[in-house]
């Protein structure tokens, strides 16, 4: 059915006389194993065919698509797109679809163990992650855990004649652990997300979840005030994803919704911060051979020693700025309009050992987890998040755990000073490979 859909879509689009057209077809086979404290609960599995048709008449553009139940459903999609596109106003910024499609060589994006799924193996793994916390700490238990595995085939072709095709696997594994100690309790989750399972270690995952839950016991708020903080890689990742990544996307820059507009070539962060986007990085979650409109992925430096070097482009935004696409077109589903987004973000490591940084804190927090970072405002750069798992450090000594206080600040002020330093250790977290970061001053709303 996969190739029948492509063939039929191409034939129909050619017949309708569009000036340009693009066909994007995805075959997604997914399986999820879910477990709770009571054991393995269920398996959800299935296959879906998704089609996106982008058609252009003059400078009028329409995207239509969705799930396809039968090959003949394509007729409805193309016909509907035809009916709509004729009535639309012209997009004066439209130039063209990508005129040359292509692929990069990317390693580690197909895991045979995911593609040729041995279900029993993963059911056993979930069962293991349910039982393991008790072996580490008798106060701990798994509240829920899941393994989500996907095998995806994609084809993109357009009226300029190019065709690109790839396959990719993805694994997302999570475990949530709770620790109960008398009347006190604490929870923590750990996860693994990548294109393959080569780095996955269930013991390590569960141990870190148990350690996090134990660390959160007997927490209390600190007083409202200004503190030094260390954002552990998970929190720094969340900050980049919510505040910096959107501001680097060309569509946001062009529409005046990025504080980084007009800042190319200027210092925007500490000279200790270098950020790279790399869709070709082996085995990471966002690694793939081409982006969601068929442009080869590649490596590009976004922030070099604090200086803004590049924005992220898809074809549409690149045409507006008379540039080449950076291979960063992103579509959550084939029938949505592409827009620029990150592939994988790599932050250069620093020279400092985490323990050394913590020992030198005078009045600070080491923050392991937050909630609500995504509520921060990338248009203004205003960071807001609530601490969910942290420790308070007084003159180098860990005093107690902290949660429920709010960290706030302008991210471009917080990260601009060269007093900001990064650790030498990094973590891979889905699409991000980042170290921990020390920030000398941040505003915290807590008690009083």
């Amino acid at each position, binding site marked *: 059915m996969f190739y029948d859909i492509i063939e039929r879509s191409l034939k129909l689009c050619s017949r309708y006389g569009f000036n340009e057209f693009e066909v994007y077809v995805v075959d997604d086979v997914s399986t999820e194993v879910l477990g709770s404290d009571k054991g393995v609960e269920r398996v959800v599995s299935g296959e879906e065919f998704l089609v996106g048709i982008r058609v252009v008449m003059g400078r009028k553009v329409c995207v239509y698509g969705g799930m396809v139940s039968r090959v003949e459903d394509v007729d409805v999609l193309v016909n509907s797109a035809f009916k709509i596109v004729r009535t639309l106003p012209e997009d004066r910024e439209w130039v063209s679809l990508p005129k040359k499609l292509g692929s990069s060589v990317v390693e580690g994006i197909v895991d045979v163990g995911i593609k040729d799924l041995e279900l029993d193996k993963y059911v056993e793994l979930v069962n293991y992650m349910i039982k393991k916390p008790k072996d580490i700490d008798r106060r701990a238990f798994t509240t829920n855990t899941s393994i989500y595995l996907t095998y995806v085939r994609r084809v993109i072709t357009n009226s300029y004649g190019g065709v690109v095709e790839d396959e990719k696997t993805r694994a997302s594994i999570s475990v949530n652990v*709770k620790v109960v100690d008398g009347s006190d309790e604490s929870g923590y989750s750990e996860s693994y997300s990548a294109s393959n399972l080569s780095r996955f270690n269930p013991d390590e995952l569960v141990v870190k979840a148990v350690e996090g839950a134990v660390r959160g016991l007997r927490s209390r708020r600190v007083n409202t005030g200004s503190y030094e903080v260390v954002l552990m890689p998970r929190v720094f990742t969340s900050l980049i994803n919510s505040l910096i990544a959107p501001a680097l996307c060309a569509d946001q820059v062009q529409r005046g919704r990025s504080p980084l507009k007009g800042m190319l070539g200027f210092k925007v962060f500490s000279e200790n911060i270098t950020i790279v986007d790399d869709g070709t990085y082996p085995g990471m979650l966002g690694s793939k051979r081409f982006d969601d409109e068929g442009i080869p992925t590649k490596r590009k430096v976004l922030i070099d020693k604090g200086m803004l070097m590049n924005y992220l482009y898809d074809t549409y935004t690149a045409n507006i700025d008379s540039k080449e696409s950076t291979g960063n077109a992103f579509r959550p589903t084939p029938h949505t*309009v592409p827009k620029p987004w990150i592939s994988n973000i790599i932050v250069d490591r620093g020279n400092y050992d985490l323990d050394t940084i913590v020992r030198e804190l005078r009045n600070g927090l080491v923050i392991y987890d937050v909630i609500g970072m995504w509520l921060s405002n990338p248009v203004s750069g205003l960071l807001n998040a609530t601490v969910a798992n942290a420790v308070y450090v007084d003159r180098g000594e860990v005093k107690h755990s902290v949660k429920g206080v709010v960290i706030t600040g302008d991210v471009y002020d917080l990260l601009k000073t060269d007093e900001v330093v990064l650790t030498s250790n990094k973590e891979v977290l889905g699409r991000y490979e980042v170290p921990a970061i020390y920030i000398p001053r941040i505003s915290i709303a807590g008690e009083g």
Partner: protein
Amino acid sequence: MITTYEELTSLALEEALKIGANHVLVRIQEKLYEVITYDCGVLKGYSVGRVSGLGIRVLVNGGVGYVYTTSLNRESIVGSIKRAVSIARSLSRYGRIEYVDIKPVKDFFKVDIKVDPYNIDPEVKVGLVKEVNTSSMKKDGIKSVITRLAYEVDRRYVVSSDGVNVGGEVTLVGFSHTAVAKYGMTSEKVSNSKTFVGGYEFIESNDWLLFADEVDKLAIKTSQAKTPTPGTYVAVLDNEAVGLLIHEAFGHASEGDLVITGSSVLRGMVGERVASELITIVDEGIVNGGYPVPYDDEGVSKGRTVVVKDGILNEFLSSRYVGGRLGCGSTGNARVQDITYDSVVRQTNYYVEPKDLSIDELFDGISYGIYIVGRGTSGGEVDPSIGTYTFSIGPSYIVRDGEPTELVRGVVVSGNILETLMSVDAVAKDLKVITNVFGGCGKDGQTVRVGFGGPHIRVRKLVVGGL
């Protein structure tokens, strides 16, 4: 060739029972979602998406398998059934899942619409969005504007081997406007949207230029506003802010699946005080302004569930599986985003019941506090296991001597939901429940439409963050 949902469900039920399933549930869905987006005077997208397919859940000796397919031919459906039964049989050795009994029911629910949005000429819809968007772009101080018009038609059927045969078709339409204003070095974004359960008549009967103008003016004022001083405030929360707080911070904790896994701060607290005696919280399938859920995605009737009665925790939300583990029936809260997911316990229309005070009376006696306004709120996040929450709130107001005064931006509130609800000391009479065609509630990777709201309430202590 299979052409009707009756043929599809009959085939699925018969095949699954024939090869050993003890219980079978079939879901069929057809959905259309259209969104038109104008961004800074340019038509950024005319996008239409369809969902169509079938999901089948089988129970075999206590094991559960759920398999979905978007290919609606006999071969794919029979293959999916065999796989579901095989998975369920395999899982039966890890434990035994049971579903509580429910009443067999046959029904079909359809939202009445006067004007079908599908039949409106695309040129007319695009023209409206363009007019509103380009008009806003001309205003001094406005730097960026996104305007959207969307509608969705979601038709679902749920059929089970124990007598459920229900269906429904819900149509939503909505209009959304986001303006970014810049003042000096400060850019601030303000959004608002309106959603209606029904047809395009809603779009035709409203003045969207006026709606957008209010958003634009507020964005300009907000960009010139200060952030509040961080600290603890006496706060009055408006309807939307209350709805968001209750849905996110309390509602999720009252979902029974989190309770049975020890992931809710409310577990073991039925019969105990969890809020001020002024607080009664309800989850209800059909509420004026909310998202209609007459039946959940297990085909269970969704009536009215009183979760908290006068401050005392009364009942959790449940599904057929969770209800069994909690030792109660299903409250009709098993919901799915679409057929590619099996159901989890979700809220429907979750709100605080009104009392009898006027809104003005809530402000009386506040010498210094904050008026939290939910319009344009980015959303919230909660850790239901401990009740910690955080919300990014839209432009709000400092309260001085009983009156809302200067506007403040960048307001973030956080706290522990039980402490917050315990400190409620006044509830107004102005109940309002809303839903949203542009978004919904996320859980376990699924998004479903919900309704949320309540009356204005006053909280004695609320932690507010700011610069």
